[in-house]
């Protein structure tokens, strides 16, 4: 701004602020009113509505969490979006690999630690060119981390499998 109160030597500072505000308003209006679906995805990006089945692996929990997850039910994220319903729960002992004194590698179970695999079905998923999107606009792929809760348990884990059911 110069000593005459002009920006770039031409525009009055008040006009400049007005222009910036108008531009920001237009951007805001565009974001607000360009159609999106319930998952927050631009409608133009959606290829199709799909039903997804994905497996969330939760590593190293105690039996109390396993028991709570076995009650199944709907899973939600911290914002309250439903991320699907648990249809199957499997668990195995958590294993660790170690080497015996004679150099033999062995796998042994870690006491009281389990790996849980939740199969979750999500009816309201979307498929775009780039990703699968579940409720709340969360894009998932094998390897994604998800934090969620059921009625009885909190859990966070990694997506290890995704299948499109229909």
């Amino acid at each position: 701004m110069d000593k005459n109160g002009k920006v770039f030597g031409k525009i009055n500072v008040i006009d400049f602020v007005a222009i910036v505000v108008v531009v920001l308003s237009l951007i805001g209006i565009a974001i607000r009113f360009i159609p999106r679906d319930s998952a927050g995805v631009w409608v133009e990006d959606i290829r199709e509505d799909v039903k997804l089945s994905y497996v969330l692996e939760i590593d190293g929990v105690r039996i109390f969490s396993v028991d709570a997850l076995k009650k199944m039910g709907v899973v939600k994220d911290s914002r309250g979006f439903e991320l699907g319903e648990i249809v199957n729960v499997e668990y195995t002992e958590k294993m660790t690999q170690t080497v015996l004194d004679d150099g033999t590698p062995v796998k042994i179970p870690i006491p009281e630690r389990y790996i849980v695999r939740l199969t979750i079905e999500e009816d309201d998923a979307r498929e775009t060119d780039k990703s699968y999107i579940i409720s709340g606009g969360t894009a998932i792929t094998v390897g994604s981390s998800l934090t969620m809760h059921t009625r009885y348990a909190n859990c966070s884990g990694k997506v290890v499998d995704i299948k499109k059911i229909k």
Partner: protein
Amino acid sequence: MKKKFTLIDAGIIIIVLALLVVGINVLDLWKPEEVVQEEEKHGVTFTVLCDSVDEGFSKRMKAGDKVKITYGDDFYVTIDEVIEEPLKEHKYIDSKGEYITHTVEGKSSLRIRLKDDAIITKDGVIVANAYIRVGDSLPIYTKEYALVGYIIDIDEKGFDYKKLEKKGGEE
């Protein structure tokens, strides 16, 4: 210097207000649809596991005692039962290539079952204004002691939360 309020000033004010409204709407886009949940009060018990307390700690506690379970507001629940067991630890033994389990001298593990008239909704059990879930950390304290454990079990005492869904659906 006195300045006149011009049409441009009025325009700027209107645009700023419009921007604020749009901004608020944009933020709201990322919230799930507000659902008024059916709820009902019902007696529940929940168990908190506190590992590694001093042996004999349970003598300080008895069924019927009121304990505070929040750091901020005064929310009290009632102790239903306290079970003290020797603390067990698992230690990996290199030479054997396996874990052995041993008890830790002078230390105990406490299972404290608490009871309260909780609010039950479709989403879970609310105690002290917050949902409680297995795995949540929970403080338990009185003026005599303070412990921190985590929730290992929630028992709704036969309450069928699905009836709340039906009630909501009928409306």
